[in-house]
């Protein structure tokens, strides 16, 4: 018999999925310094992140969360909570999905997009903290740039498509409808495709 207990996920993912850390149980009694909600239940995952911050030191002292999603979404948020507690707010702000997936010992390719919510929720919570404390200047506007003019597809859309599994120009078109009208954006789209593949998967 082969080992039927073998998982599609790493042991670390399994551990955090089975024993998630820092879930927010008492929503009403928790006074967060920043709160961020991202995702959408319709798309299958949603996440709320709450942070407490030591203002003097600029350090995150607590991170609590609630997540609706699959095992990798749950494990990603759980491990993220461990990663950011004690971290400088400004450093936490720049955590990437790759950092989270790396900490989990990797995620299956089609699951990487689940870890994207974690850092997005954290950034949303930090943005909330910044704006509550008059530090709006620190908020990085994540502006998207239109690549495909015909179908109104942005570089962010391309990045999301790559995270969702698009690896070829054709797959990118299937995901975003990009380049399906005049096709002028192909060269740039292909360049971005390679960039995001390197960024998230190499």
């Amino acid at each position, binding site marked *: 018999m082969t080992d039927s207990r073998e998982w599609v996920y790493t042991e670390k993912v399994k551990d955090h999925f089975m024993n998630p850390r820092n879930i927010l149980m008492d929503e009403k009694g928790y006074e967060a310094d920043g709160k961020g909600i991202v995702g959408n239940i*319709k798309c*299958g*995952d949603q996440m709320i992140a709450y942070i407490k911050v030591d203002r003097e030191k600029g350090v995150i002292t607590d991170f609590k969360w609630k997540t*609706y*999603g*699959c095992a990798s979404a749950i494990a990603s948020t759980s491990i993220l909570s461990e990663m950011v507690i004690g971290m400088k707010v400004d450093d936490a702000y720049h955590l990437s999905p790759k950092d989270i997936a790396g900490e989990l010992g990797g995620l299956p390719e089609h699951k990487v997009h689940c870890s994207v919510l974690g850092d997005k929720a954290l950034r949303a919570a930090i943005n909330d903290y910044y704006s509550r404390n008059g530090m709006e200047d620190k908020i990085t506007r994540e502006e998207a740039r239109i690549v495909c003019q015909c179908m109104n597809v942005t570089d962010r859309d391309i990045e999301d498509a790559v995270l969702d599994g698009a690896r070829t120009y054709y797959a990118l078109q299937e995901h975003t409808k990009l380049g399906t009208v005049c096709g002028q954006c192909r060269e740039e789209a292909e360049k971005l495709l390679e960039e995001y593949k390197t960024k998230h998967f190499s």
Partner: protein
Amino acid sequence: MSNRRIYLDNNATTPLHPEVKTALKEGMDAYGNPSSMHSFGREARTLVEKARENVASFIGASAEELVFVGSGSEANNTVLSIFTCTLEKKCTCDRCGGSGVITTTIEHPCVLETSKCLIDKGVNVRYIGVDRYGKVDPEKLAEMIDGETGLVSIMMANNEIGTILDIKELAGVVHEKGALFHTDAVQAVGKVPVDVNELGVDFLTISAHKMYGPKGVGALYIRKGIPFCPLIRGGHQEKGRRAGTENTLGIIGLSKAVDMRRKEMKDEEERLLGFKTRLKEGLEAAVPDISFNGHPEDSLPGTVNVSFEGAEGEAILLYLDMEGIAVSTGSACASGSLDPSHVLLATGLSAEYAHGSVRISMGRETTGKDIDRVLAVFPEVINRIRNMSSAYKKGEK
């Protein structure tokens, strides 16, 4: 593991029946090519033809109307592809001619993907929707069929929600309008009585591994007198309708599986219906904010599809797996795609509920103790997920 593992994914595939295992072991010695004229070949041929008669009679067909194939998917691909051939008179079959197809939005991917491919090839494919239970309205179907419609393909029982469609009535409507009717019956054959003449279908798809037979073998019923053109060419096997040396062993297994179905199906149907009632009532009593999918009565005896508010399906599946309980889910996350079950969405279920859906499909090995254990484990698992869920608010309803 202290607990026995509990397999509740019988709509995905079934364990081999012990009698089928025995038949397969014995069948391994029949290695001759059924097409060979010597005694080795003749022995294998005899086994294949006996199996053909047996499987055919199980669905009320005659042996010559049954073609053995490699899978249910192959049978479905065959019917869809050949009856929509756009070569129009350039090839030798008399049925070719770019006739249009109508199928439903809840078919198995092997029908839906093939139909998409047909569209690219210029075939006029249209899809008829279903009601909230997954049923097709015969009147709507009648309205859709026009002079161009050559084939209507509607599954007999849905793999995800278990709904049994009114094939007899739908086939009647289709024939009145002069088109041919195919039903993918892989989930129905072996679970409920199926008779091709009673149903009045022209084509019907069977799969062995959904009824305790081996994987990699199925059968396609083709009503006598209907012209046919093979998908796989290059051999005279199966009277030229499907090239490739017969999978003797698989065919023996399918035939044995059918034998066992004749003996066990009726009792099993009653037993599973009892379990199903217990499961539904038990879950409803122990877990708030749930809803059941599929038709309340016209449904496969062993299939329960349930949605949990605020709990995502893959998480449910994996927590249950940790307890040794195997189910499946309509959540996008478990499939690797981005969308949840197309079947649940087609019934009008919201994406949220589709993501939180679980299919429990019982089978001949399912016991009352299994049901007890499922009912003991489920509330705890759902509660655990909902406690960490951003999408579930306790007591708001």
